[in-house]
């Protein structure tokens, strides 16, 4: 069936709107601040046979771009007994997932009695049990320590919620009372999707919408191929370093060999490090999705559907830490290891087409968790913060300061809101001076914050990265500053042995923690920086005059 261009555009908008409306309802009704402020959720429409992504909300969390279709595929494979009105609940990382905190729901959508597609969503819950509040243990050595692992089970059976399942889940997690709100938010988003999709199909008919989906997929593939075709053929290699796995103090390497051949692109990660003991393993779904998201960051105009992944070929890196199997712990995969994989992709493509690219962004989610008891309010709390860092300088200008991680799009929680909710005082929430990597276009700056505990006791944990080496520059630019952590307990200040990771720090009233996040890499040689911009940077206190001389000195010959 051939489609006129108008119907095609209308249906493309229509499918996107269904997913975006699901995202909106999910975000506005959820109780997890990670979802409502952090947008750490995603909603989409998936193919009834293959589970491939048909459409996904534009403002969904980037890392879920690829992951959601793998989840849906795992559900299709495992649950042959789905009926109208069912909703599957699953968070098993090994079944097309990320970490345990990303809880997915999958609902078969029937149109006039026929299975037409799957509607799926995922939301980051603040806790799913496990050895540390919030789930980001830096020292787990098997997944059972990380929290409750739910296989694909029917949360809703023919429209009736299964209270037994809800009870098991809520009995195994912290601050359970708000999670029933999150369950309803997620189910509510699926219901909205069902209503909107029914309207779309009523209006245009199954045959037309199916034909449009096929054409849109072909269009995305054509566009992605056109982009890949513009990269010179050849093999490019890049390495990215994970500080450590949190258990063994040794760097882990993501080694990428990327081959461009015409309009196809092949990613081989098989030279990467072996599986690790700590939670820095990545499951296969997350590894693939990381490559997809990196490509989407480089070529943002390609609409998200299965077509844009077709020219991207990733060999399963079996035997490495990027292909984790049960019972390897995986808490760090979606937030940190995913960003190292993306960094390797940015690095490899940066060698091929530096004139169109950017130097490496800070690339850590900067997870800081604090769980404790507030005697004044008589309540237990779990707080966790993600932090931004500097983006790399790029072909046009300097890097962005305090940008979100490359896997996320979340917003910082306001200091004033955090201080209302938790017994803490921010003594500083500032731009981290001097952290941007030197270059013709310097990197953006990281942030520098210090939090003092005001009352009671609390336990602090850190799951960050880039403490060992800073985000690399491009075209001769310098790396950005490394991540730094300091903890003050009873006046004694220490830093975690694993630099960017640590947990079990018991804080008493008056103790503090301080974090400095990485700056972005520089773009082009530092000596080529415009002296007027350098003067401006010094006037603004971005660099001291001494630093400017040390980092950006122009060779005498160039004067």
């Amino acid at each position, binding site marked *: 069936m051939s489609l006129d*261009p108008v119907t095609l555009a209308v249906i493309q908008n229509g499918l996107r709107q269904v997913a975006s409306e699901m995202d909106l309802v999910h975000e506005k*009704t959820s109780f997890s601040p990670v979802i409502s402020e952090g947008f750490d959720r995603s909603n989409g429409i998936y193919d009834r046979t293959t589970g491939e992504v048909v459409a996904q909300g534009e403002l969904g969390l980037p890392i879920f771009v690829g992951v959601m279709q793998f989840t849906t595929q795992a559900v299709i494979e495992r649950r042959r007994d789905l009926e109208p009105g069912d909703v599957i609940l699953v968070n098993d990382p090994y079944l097309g997932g990320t970490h345990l905190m990303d809880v997915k729901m999958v609902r078969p959508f029937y149109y006039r009695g026929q299975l037409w597609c799957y509607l799926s969503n995922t939301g980051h819950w603040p806790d799913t049990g496990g050895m540390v509040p919030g789930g980001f243990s830096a020292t787990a050595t098997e997944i059972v320590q990380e929290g409750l692992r739910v296989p694909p089970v029917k949360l809703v059976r023919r429209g009736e919620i299964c209270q037994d399942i809800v009870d098991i889940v809520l009995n195994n997690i912290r601050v359970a009372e708000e999670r029933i709100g999150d369950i309803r938010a997620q189910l509510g988003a699926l219901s909205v999707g069902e209503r909107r999709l029914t309207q779309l199909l009523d209006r245009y008919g199954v045959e037309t919408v199916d034909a449009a989906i096929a054409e849109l997929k072909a269009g995305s593939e*054509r566009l992605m191929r056109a982009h890949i075709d513009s990269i010179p053929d050849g093999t490019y290699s890049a390495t990215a370093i994970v500080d450590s796995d949190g258990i063994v103090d040794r760097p882990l390497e993501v080694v990428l060999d990327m081959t461009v051949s015409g309009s196809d692109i092949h990613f081989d990660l098989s030279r990467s490090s072996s599986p690790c003991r700590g939670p820095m393993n990545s499951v296969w779904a997350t590894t693939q999705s990381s490559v997809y998201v990196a490509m989407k960051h480089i070529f943002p*105009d*390609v609409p998200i559907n299965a077509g844009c992944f077709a020219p991207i070929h990733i060999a399963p890196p079996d035997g490495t830490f990027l292909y984790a199997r049960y019972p390897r712990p995986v808490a760090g995969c979606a937030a940190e290891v995913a960003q190292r994989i993306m960094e390797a992709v940015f690095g490899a493509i940066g060698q091929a087409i530096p004139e169109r690219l950017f130097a490496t962004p800070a690339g850590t989610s900067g997870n800081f968790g604090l769980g404790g008891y507030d005697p004044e309010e008589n309540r237990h709390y779990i707080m966790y913060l993600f932090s931004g860092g500097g983006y790399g300088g790029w072909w046009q200008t300097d890097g962005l300061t*305090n940008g979100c991680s490359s896997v996320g799009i979340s917003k*910082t929680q306001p200091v004033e809101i955090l201080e209302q909710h938790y017994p803490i005082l921010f003594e500083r929430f500032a*731009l981290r001076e001097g952290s941007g990597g030197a270059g013709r276009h310097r990197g953006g700056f990281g942030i520098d914050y210090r939090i003092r505990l005001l009352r009671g006791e609390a336990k602090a944990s850190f799951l960050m990265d880039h403490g060992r080496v800073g985000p690399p520059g491009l075209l001769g630019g310098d790396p950005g500053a490394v991540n730094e952590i300091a903890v003050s307990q009873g006046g004694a200040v220490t830093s975690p042995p694993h630099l960017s990771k640590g947990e079990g720090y018991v804080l008493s009233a008056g103790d503090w923690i301080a974090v400095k996040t990485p700056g972005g890499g520089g773009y082009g040689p530092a000596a080529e920086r415009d002296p007027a911009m350098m003067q401006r940077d010094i006037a603004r206190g971005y660099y001291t005059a001494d630093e400017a001389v040390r980092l950006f000195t122009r060779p005498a010959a160039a004067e």
Partner: protein
Amino acid sequence: MAWQIGVDVGGTFTDLLALDPERGFFRVAKVPSTPEDQSVGFMAGLCALETALAAVAALVHGTTVATNAVLERKGARCGLITTAGFRDVLELGRRTRPNPYGMTGSFEALIPRDLRAEVPERIDAAGRVLTPLDEAAVRREVQRLRERGAEALVIHFIHSYASPAHERRCAEIARELWPNRFVTLGSDILREVREFERGSTAALNGYVQPIVSRYLGRLSQNLRGAGLGNELLVMQGNGGMMAAGTAVDLAVHTVLSGPAAGAIAAAQIGAQAGYPNLVACDMGGTSFDVSLIAAGEPALSAEKDIAYGVPLRVPLVDIHTIGAGGGSIARITRAGLLQVGPDSAGARPGPIAYGRGGTDVTVTDANLLLGRLNPDRLTGVAGGAPMERITAAIEEQIGAPLGLDAIAAAVAVLAVTTNQLAHAIRLVSVEKGHDPRDFALFAFGGGGPLHAVEIARELGIPTVLVPRFPGITSALGCVLAPVRHDFVRSIGQPLATVETGDIDDRFADQAASGRQLLDREGVPLAEIVVQHEADLLFRGQSHVFRVPVMAPGFDRSVVLADFMASYKARFDIELPEMTAMLANLRTTVIGRRAPVDLAIFAPAERSAARQPSGIRQVRFSGAWIDTPIYDRAVLNRGTKLAGPAIVEQPDTTVVIDPGATAAVDALGNLVISVGER
């Protein structure tokens, strides 16, 4: 002393409307805008209007001076005094990047880092002083900022919404040292939690204040010289207006005031015509602005970002803008899809039709090719549109890649455009829980009436309303707007534990502040209306819901029930076990002026049936149809037209598709029943 004058300065034209409601007279004028100094065009327009200023009761001005200063980054040099440790709040923002995908972008804070100073002081979330204000440091830093050339000063302390004591003391000291009145306190502009958003709103005020002050000062002086006896009044982004003297202190409230005036006029015309529920659509050369009017009131939002990284948290008429106008460019993307906008050919080079060197196909070009626009009557284009060039360009750029001829390609361009416009309307209606079928579409601006029937059909909207003078709608809004002041105060406590007497007191304070401002401004008012609202949310959530409340007599159980009901209505979710939190108290004080009977715009009633001024071939639903063309000026009250028909007037063209019928109502509006496609 009976003339009411509205003056709206837009990017291209300055529109003026003088209205004498008692005698039923009106005059309109349109003169070119003078962007380098808007007051020049303003005064020229007044001359064109031929109305003696001594006989003017109220002169209300919608200005883009503040909006342009922000969008073009041409505001004043501002200094910031802030809490030690928080100098970079404005620069760090909330960790966003410009687009979800792409690790690039750049951002400059409104106040550069070398003009942001810290002083020791700290107040906690409960409003208790943790560190006293270091007054010597304030003096030192204020002096230093002056020396560095700051013209305006912004004072922004952490948790000042909970206790403004430190900000106020700091301002006392600063005002002793500051050479002008440009000192802004965050807690004065927005007494609401969230340091970045409050700081940004305060910084915006400081950034535009000297610009607005100089402009209004110059203009007021000219007006006084020309004989105006009253204080000039200025439109706000919330759809109300205020005295020019107040506007200097609250300069940020004039941002985005132009489109707000249009929404106000739409609301009043709709209410008087019997259509209190409207989707107001203003389509110009580069953009399409949509707002929703329910029960005669434009919807407001206090969650706008005026640019990337620059939130503005004062209430503004909720106008959704997309880049789709007559000048929007149509093209085939690399994925092979037909796309219209968001980039525009603008006024220069403009559409191919203007013959000013434009080569990209635009929406206007497609309208011309299909006979919907008159090629000989393009405003400001001598000698008619170059139809052959247009045909060739559409065929080559759009038709060839899609395998269509030029006509089919032009039809496709308009269909995609209509779909995008309809989507923009869905965002402000359906996606906020409104059914478009309960609304009428109010079409204004040059392009609105051209596409209105098609858009309405796409959305199931039964009626389109085209006002008598679509091109001066914003100037009319200036004449009709009430005086208005908004206040907010953050609470952040469980609803069940707040002291109701305490809440009543806070509402009463806000109402008193508003009444004081009205007194000071001295605009003659017919009545004063005070409205109180509460923002609520469930503990643990981030998004607030607003419900109207009674004060005095704030009743927790009534407020809770209203909150639960509106939550259920919007999301179909009930959460009885969760804790409701009282986030903010909002008060709006509105001074209404004497109402204006818009029947004065209606043409005289005559019995003779109107004849078309001509007939033109227009493309409708796959066929060329001989379509009668009417001149709007001679359509009398009660005239009925059946589609297909086209109505032309100097500021717009109205397309009445086959199957639609139109009638001229008692206010001179063209009311179109859109019928079936």
